[in-house]
């Protein structure tokens, strides 16, 4: 049987997955604050490592794992996301993410706000 419009269904599934992840956060960034492109990156790309154990990546909004990585401040987290660090690939392999989108994704994935972190701007 030919199945059509599966793309729409698949996209909806991914969006729900991303929304589900965000909904489980006590993080400062809410689902409504993410654009569709950001939610897409979160659900399709970032989550493949940050929502699974065993990949060495810190889990989404796991404060204990993220605090240590955030010792140098929010800007350092953003910088490390763009150029990569350790096992984290540059840009998290997102081919389209802009700086603004990366900043929003870092907030969601780390569960941390820039204000709550040291103000060091140098990574």
């Amino acid at each position, binding site marked *: *049987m*030919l*199945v*059509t*419009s*599966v*793309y729409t269904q*698949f*996209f909806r599934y*991914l969006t729900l997955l991303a929304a589900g992840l965000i909904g489980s956060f006590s993080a400062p960034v809410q689902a409504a604050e993410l654009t569709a*492109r950001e939610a*897409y*990156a979160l659900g*399709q*790309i970032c989550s*493949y*490592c940050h929502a699974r154990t*065993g*990949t*060495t*990546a810190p889990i989404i909004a796991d404060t204990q794992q993220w605090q240590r990585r955030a010792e140098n401040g929010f*800007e350092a987290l*953003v*910088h490390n996301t*763009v*150029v*990569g660090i350790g*096992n984290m*690939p*540059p*840009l998290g*392999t*997102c*081919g*389209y993410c*802009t*700086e603004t989108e990366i900043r929003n994704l870092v907030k969601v994935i780390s569960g941390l706000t820039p204000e709550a972190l040291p103000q060091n*701007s140098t990574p």
Partner: protein
Amino acid sequence: MINRRNLIKKSFIGSLGTGGLLGLSACEKSSMGPAAPLSYEFTAGKPMPWINWAKNQGCFPAKRIAPQSEDELCELLKANHSSRMRPVGAGHSFSAIVPTEGTLISTDLLNGIISTDSQANTARVWGGTRLHQLGPALDSYGLALTNWPDINYQTLAGAISTSTHGSGAALGSLSSMVNELTIATPAGELITCSASTRPELFNAARCGLGALGIITQVNLDTTAAFNLAQTTAVEPLADVLNNIDQEKERNRHFEFLAFPHTSQALVVRTNPIDAAAPITTFGEEDPTAIYQIREAYQKLGILPLVGEYAYQKVIDFAADGAETLTSGPSYSVLTHDRVVPFREMEYTVPADAGPACLEEILSRIARKKIPVIFPIEYRYTQQDNIWLSMFCEQAGCSISIHQFADEDYREYFAEIEPIFRKYAGRPHWGKLHTLGSQALSELYPHWADFLAVRNSIDPAGRLLNEHLTELFGLTGNAHG
């Protein structure tokens, strides 16, 4: 790669003092310091670099676009008619196939399954679909690909464009599973091709290096979803090579990873199991175990006789009882997390030449005392008729060498590449190599055919970058 399994978890490496076993000094790392640092730093508010997964390629594109539909893509291409551009997927290529100072076109947002036909066993998929999402998505319709590559971070379009493959003597590459595809040309025109419609373009575009257009849709040959069981065990390499023909025939998927400076290999055998069979896992997976092996190597030191003997004993000790078993859906069993950054060179030699080529590589490493511990990957793939496929008109044995991203790969790869060349090896387009147009034209029987199609689709060379210009021998002409 050995990091797929927890090979040395139970070993005593971690307890070794910094002086090392037998009091040997730390491994001499030769001249291999960190590879040349990238100059693609990022400053907030300034243009953002694109950098590949392995951190050895990068660029500052003048413009980035990420179309969400074919119409949008075509409009962008038409509006962008004066600039150079390159498509990008997940950026998993080690070669300079992506970097551009023009427009970078991400396919990420052209993503998902468009339709499936369970009677014809086909699935139409958007080119930007990540492989790690394609497996579960197909499975939800009772379908599967016949084979998978070891790594599944890539986009489908990117994997096809470089003839990405898994292992299985009777199984083809991902490119060989394509029965129809649609590309958006640099002029903003959509062209659909297949074996019966524009066959020349079809034969070129199934491994087109992103030089013919942006792959938007792919119709894939699939099969009914199936389960596999995968076993791994460390065995004497000599035994493996002596039985290589039987191993290829007996196992649907067969590959191994040879440990330099030892006589051992991690053998991976994967075969179908009944759908009703329980999902089983035996042995723990540790994607960072390779770091432990490096630590052992560095602590023991590769010194004449004693150091090498001690390292071999550590591998023997760690391998004893390190067997693993994993079963489950095929897409899950055949792909693995690869989190340790590395650089890679892979050549595909004629299948029958595989054992001799590997033995010569291992012999060279031992004789030259090259300080490398990354296992050497050894896989088979069926022949196809795709013009730039490494398997074009001949079954292939793909041999891959790796180096940690924080060590310089160049001396090691330069030492081994002539051996690949001696055995008429064809380089993987997404991995590191130094071949130019003349050498490639001798290795690929349809090289000139591909160049002719490329010129007809993109006469102005808008999809070329420096790497492809050189690769295709176009330096100095209008494309250069």
